[in-house]
């Protein structure tokens, strides 16, 4: 939707830094880039016999870009001619300050290619790891995801934690005529496509924990309902938990239940609904006239984030409470008289870090912030500062966020690495909203060629 904020408003922090810093409430600080030395990585063009040289080029390009987008490494921008092929001479690479060198060899196979990947540790002068993977032909729909899975494994070899390339982002689009679409896009921005639509509102897509199903809310002819879609087959079923309005569904961590905000009998509640038995709305929270929404379970499923205006200042705030309901602790800063607004919480898949968006006075634009669910009332880190930034969702590595941005470059969906503060456009378009990052959809083990020789780690 159009959410162009005035450029001047975007300037509040950028142009009047010291003033803004004075106005900023205690407990919120602007994040600084995490200036750890990032290792220099080089990807040498993958080699292949002539008939599949083109495929090898695109494999190289995809892996190179996945490593770039991961932001854990600096990438060697251009390779000297004499280093483009031939035996690896560690001294030459070392002279370029390269720490890890990625090599690939592509051979044709029955169903596509075999990609043999080797990563050299230049500093120690040895092979860090090597493995062979089965990649479908470039014309196959699974081709790119398989290459992404290989790139994610290369990241794991180097950084001990896998990459996030083999993922997709679900999002919605509001069309001019009042219709809505559900879209998917690969994590590298490739293949933005419509997978479903609705003549009425289509809101809040969310991924099942295994990444195989998508759940979203629609308001068409029969009022608000949930649609659950099997991503691979495209088959879908309608789930009707009742109520006058359904808000912000989220799967339980075991994928058997859905947590959602529900408006029923003109009251707002947090409820849980059994997806397997398709029954039994169970109330988790909701007191009288308060607005409650955005239930988000912690990675271990034992706690729940949610948004409520129960402080009665007319603004949403983020709370954390036991999964079954009970005493809630205020996570976001509250100062009497301040017109604070915090909503859209997302719990990091890897830690107690919570991303959300909000503002701390009525003039301010909305910015992405981070809190620690283990320290309610503790320090808040603001990770965006320009334009208007909303609705964050974590990548599976708990380090990258996808979010809606306008007023700082073209409006659309952006990806931010909260450590390096580097960002990129995922999909331009002011009518793209409610982005949700999937879990890892394919692992290197899924495409591993089992007959390959054992790892030569030393």
């Amino acid at each position, binding site marked *: 939707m159009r*959410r162009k904020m005035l450029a001047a408003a975007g300037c509040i922090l950028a142009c009047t830094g010291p003033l803004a810093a004075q106005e900023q409430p205690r407990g919120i600080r602007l994040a600084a880039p995490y200036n750890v030395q990032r290792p220099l990585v080089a990807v040498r063009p993958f080699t292949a016999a002539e008939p599949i040289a083109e495929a090898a080029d695109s494999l190289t390009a995809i892996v190179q870009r996945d490593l770039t987008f991961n932001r854990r490494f600096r990438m060697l921008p251009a390779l000297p001619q004499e280093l483009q092929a031939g035996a690896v001479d560690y001294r030459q690479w070392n002279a370029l300050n390269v720490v890890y060198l990625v090599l690939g060899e592509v051979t044709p196979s029955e169903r596509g290619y075999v990609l043999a990947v080797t990563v050299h540790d230049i500093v120690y002068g040895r092979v860090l790891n090597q493995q062979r993977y089965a990649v479908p032909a470039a014309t196959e729909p699974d081709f790119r995801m398989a290459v992404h899975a290989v790139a994610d494994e290369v990241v794991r070899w180097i950084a001990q934690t896998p990459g996030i390339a083999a993922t997709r982002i679900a999002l919605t689009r509001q069309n001019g005529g009042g219709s809505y679409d559900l879209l998917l896009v690969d994590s590298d921005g490739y293949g933005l496509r419509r997978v479903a639509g609705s003549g009425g509102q289509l809101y809040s897509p969310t991924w099942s924990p295994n990444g195989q199903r998508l759940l979203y809310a629609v308001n068409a002819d029969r009022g608000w309902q949930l649609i659950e879609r099997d991503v691979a087959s495209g088959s879908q079923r309608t789930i009707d938990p009742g109520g006058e309005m359904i808000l912000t569904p989220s799967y339980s961590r075991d994928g058997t239940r859905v947590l959602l*905000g529900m*408006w029923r009998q*003109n009251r*707002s509640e947090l409820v849980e609904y059994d997806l397997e038995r398709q029954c039994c709305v169970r109330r988790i929270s909701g007191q009288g006239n308060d607005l409650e929404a955005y239930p988000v379970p912690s990675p271990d499923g034992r706690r729940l984030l949610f948004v409520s205006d129960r402080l009665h200042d007319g603004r*949403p705030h983020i709370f954390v409470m036991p999964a079954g309901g009970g005493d809630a602790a205020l996570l976001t800063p509250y100062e009497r008289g301040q017109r604070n607004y915090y*909503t859209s919480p997302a719990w990091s898949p890897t830690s107690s870090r919570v991303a959300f968006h909000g503002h701390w006075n*009525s003039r301010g634009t909305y910015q992405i912030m981070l809190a620690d669910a283990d320290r309610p009332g503790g320090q808040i880190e603001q990770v965006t500062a320009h334009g208007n930034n909303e*609705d964050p969702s974590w990548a599976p590595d708990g380090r990258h966020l996808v979010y809606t941005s306008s007023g700082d470059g073209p409006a659309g969906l952006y990806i931010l690495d909260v450590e390096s503060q580097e960002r990129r456009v995922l999909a331009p378009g002011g009518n793209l909203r409610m982005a949700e990052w999937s879990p890892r959809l394919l692992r290197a083990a899924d495409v591993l060629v089992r007959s390959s020789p054992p790892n030569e780690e030393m």
Partner: protein
Amino acid sequence: MLRQMVLAALVIVLPLATCARRQPAPAPVSAAPDTAGEGARRAAERERARQDSIARARAAAEEAARRAGAEGAARARAILEETVFFDYDESAIRSDAQESLARKVPILRANPGARIRISGHADERGSVEYNLALGMRRAAAARQYLIGFGISADRFETVSFGEDRPADPASNEQAWTRNRRAEFVVTAGADNLVMPGN
């Protein structure tokens, strides 16, 4: 084409109608000897004219009443469907909105068959999903205010469109002011609305 045919038909019919009305005119000449019959005939004619004028007056009065009724219905509907506005991020009923809602109350009382759908809306700022909730909250606040006057709760349906249906698509303070609103639509009993006191 159709209009031409109608015109042609009128050209044929009109002279015939004129002839028909003039036919009784020569009668007095031919019936001159029968003076008693003539008096009765004239009395009947006067009586017919009197009856005609009464019918015309009655029709005119009915037409006037119908018009007044239609005007009243339109006026009642306009008051019932008057939009109310909200402050930024707020779902509290402002004083101007209180006045607007209070104007709806006597009309709702005078028209127990009238049912209303209240749709809540938000401006484009803030979370899309929270704005959907905020829209619902605004619709619910308007409904609650009307129920407070003793209007039956089951006459209202509340929905929210969040920020998706702005009244003014611009991105400025003036547009936002117009977009933070609750709209009212009469969904039943709209055809025979009356103003209170009628």
